[in-house]
């Protein structure tokens, strides 16, 4: 049974400086040292009017900044981890006990599931023993869930974070480093090497920085807009939800009938029950051996890659319950879903299993590539999981209401209809999980744009001066 948490989230700090914990901390320190060394090289070179040296400092600074951005966690994530350790929600305990990799080397088959879940409950949620099996839409005796934003508030990220500083440093170096990259690319082209690899490398060096920075700016803009929507729209309680666009947070519970089992890869051996929204992907790991003809003679080359063969997704209606009441949700109507980290992954070596069973029939190649491994990955939202919804509440068809009690929310259902400036979304996790990875508010729109501008100008200047 949940208790009223003492923690309250609200306005973020002005600056978020959160170092990672564990082994990542040492790598993070190394990244900061690399950045510091690069900046020092540039500074000394600038004092001596050596502009080439100043640019060379950037060769250290850029990778250091990228590493730093990847490794720096958010303050919110760190706080959640502390609360989870203290509160010990049941899914947190279950994952830490049952997660991990199991399998047999001799069979070459493995199954794995993550040991932690950033989208799981942060506070204790009501377990199945507290769910009313008869009155599914009615309020819980335990009251509203602890993790509801009306109880703990909406976590607002800091205004600025270390990520912002690192991206600003990258933006400073963007013009000279992009120019250097373009010169290197043109240099490769001018050496006259006509192999496929060198052309790809040259193109990547010439256009890569500009294209990557534009893509980064676009992704950050989209992410920032989504984050803003989550912060801006207050969460409704289910018992008093009104028709129209709304934000809901709650727990996934069964409606009238259980969800049909999901067979991953259509194999009964990989069946999962009680998934109300799911997606699985089937991939194969392939190898190719080629001989490339170069000016210096033939060059053997072995390539490996994962190839996606099949992706399937589905959903089954469920009740979203926040403790004050439940309402019907139609997950299939949502175009944008985020099911978080994978639930389970199965891997099978091709030669030791399928290859042996089917012999030469299966050991054939895939478009000229030799199959080495098969992998199935499953994502999903199961019974009892936390769920975040930005959707539209619409009236429910009368015939499906017949068996329902007289709660106001049973007259409605939540569907994934978007409106002007409102993109319907369905995510695994509560508002805490959804905003957990958001580092700061400012660095989503302006700073990546400046970085992209720097890279475009750098490309242009390099081309102009060449």
């Amino acid at each position: 049974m949940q208790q009223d948490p003492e923690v309250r989230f609200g306005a973020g700090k002005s600056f978020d400086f959160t170092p990672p914990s564990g082994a990542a901390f040492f790598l993070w320190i190394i990244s900061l040292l690399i950045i510091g060394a690069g900046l020092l090289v540039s500074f000394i070179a600038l004092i001596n009017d050596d502009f080439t040296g100043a640019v060379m400092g950037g060769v250290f600074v850029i990778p250091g900044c990228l590493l730093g951005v990847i490794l720096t966690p958010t303050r919110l994530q760190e706080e959640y981890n502390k609360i989870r350790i203290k509160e010990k929600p049941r899914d947190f305990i279950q994952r830490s006990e049952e997660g991990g990799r199991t399998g047999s080397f001799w069979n070459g088959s493995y199954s794995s599931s993550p040991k932690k879940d950033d989208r799981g409950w942060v506070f204790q949620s009501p377990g199945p023993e507290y769910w009313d099996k008869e009155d599914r839409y009615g309020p819980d005796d335990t009251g509203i869930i602890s993790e509801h934003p009306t109880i703990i508030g909406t976590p607002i990220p800091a205004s600025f974070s270390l990520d912002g500083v690192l991206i600003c440093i990258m933006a400073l170096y963007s013009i000279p480093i992009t120019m250097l990259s373009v010169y290197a690319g043109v240099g490769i082209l001018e050496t006259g090497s006509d192999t496929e690899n060198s052309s790809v490398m040259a193109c990547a060096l010439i256009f890569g920085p500009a294209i990557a920075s534009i893509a980064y700016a676009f992704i950050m803009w989209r992410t920032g807009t989504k984050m803003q929507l989550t912060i801006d729209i207050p969460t409704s309680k289910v018992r008093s939800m009104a028709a129209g666009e709304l934000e809901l947070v709650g727990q996934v519970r069964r409606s009238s009938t259980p969800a049909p089992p999901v067979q991953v890869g259509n194999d009964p051996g990989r069946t999962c029950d009680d998934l109300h929204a799911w997606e699985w992907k089937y991939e194969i790991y392939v190898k190719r051996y080629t001989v490339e003809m170069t000016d210096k003679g033939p060059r053997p080359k072995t390539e490996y890659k994962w190839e996606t063969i099949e992706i399937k997704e589905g959903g089954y209606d469920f009740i979203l319950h926040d403790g004050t009441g439940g309402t019907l949700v139609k997950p299939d109507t949502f175009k944008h879903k985020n099911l978080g980290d994978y639930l389970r992954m199965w891997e099978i070596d091709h030669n030791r299993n399928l290859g042996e069973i089917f012999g030469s029939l299966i050991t054939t190649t895939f478009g000229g590539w030799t199959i080495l491994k098969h992998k199935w990955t499953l994502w999903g939202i199961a019974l009892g999981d936390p769920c975040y919804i930005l959707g539209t509440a619409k009236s429910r068809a009368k015939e499906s209401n017949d068996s329902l009690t007289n709660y106001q929310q049973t007259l409605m259902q939540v569907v994934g209809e978007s409106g002007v400036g409102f993109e319907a979304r369905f995510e695994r996790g509560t508002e805490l999980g959804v905003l957990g990875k958001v580092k700061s508010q400012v660095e989503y729109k302006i700073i990546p744009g400046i970085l992209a501008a720097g890279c475009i100008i750098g490309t242009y200047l390099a081309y102009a001066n060449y």
Partner: protein
Amino acid sequence: MYIFFIVKPQFRVKIDYYHRGRIVMNGATIAVLLGITIFSLILIMWFFSTWNRLVRLEKDVDRAWANVDTILQQRFDMIPNLVKIVKQYAEHEKEIFGDLIEARKTFAEASKGGDVSGVMAAESMLSQAMPKLLALSESYPDLKANTNFLKLQEDYKEIEDSVTDQRQLYNSSATNFNTAIEIIPDSIVASFKGCQERVLYEAEQRARESVSIEF
């Protein structure tokens, strides 16, 4: 206006405005112009996205207020029925009935004009008069046994919960909007748009207490 843009091997650009003369720029100047253009584009995109965000936030506040108004209307609409039933048993309690009818009248006037302060005043009047009316059931056992009265009491409690929820939702929307129009740099766009701060719907202590009435 005719502009032609030629990139020569030595990288020089010529711009001809109505054949009035030639402006020759080098790569660095173009890069600066390019930078200014890209930065301006980012600023324009930010301006419009912030404008649209403020429009959305304003609509959210209006919608939240409309929900509050609807639920309050439902609650005030219960008053005539409650008064009618209670009058059968306690006709002489005219002061309480008068206060309730006055509260309903104040609400109707304030609601018509979307006056949050007026609605808050009506709520305050109701929250003072309602407990007195409900307490009458203690003095009149026949009233306490009246099934219609009990049903109305039950409905009143349910609506009270909804009023609290909708008030909370309205206040969250209004706070989000008020914050958005005050923080820099969004406040610049807000001043262009002429956004006005929204009044928060704060229940008086007495009104809060009324939620916890035991029936």
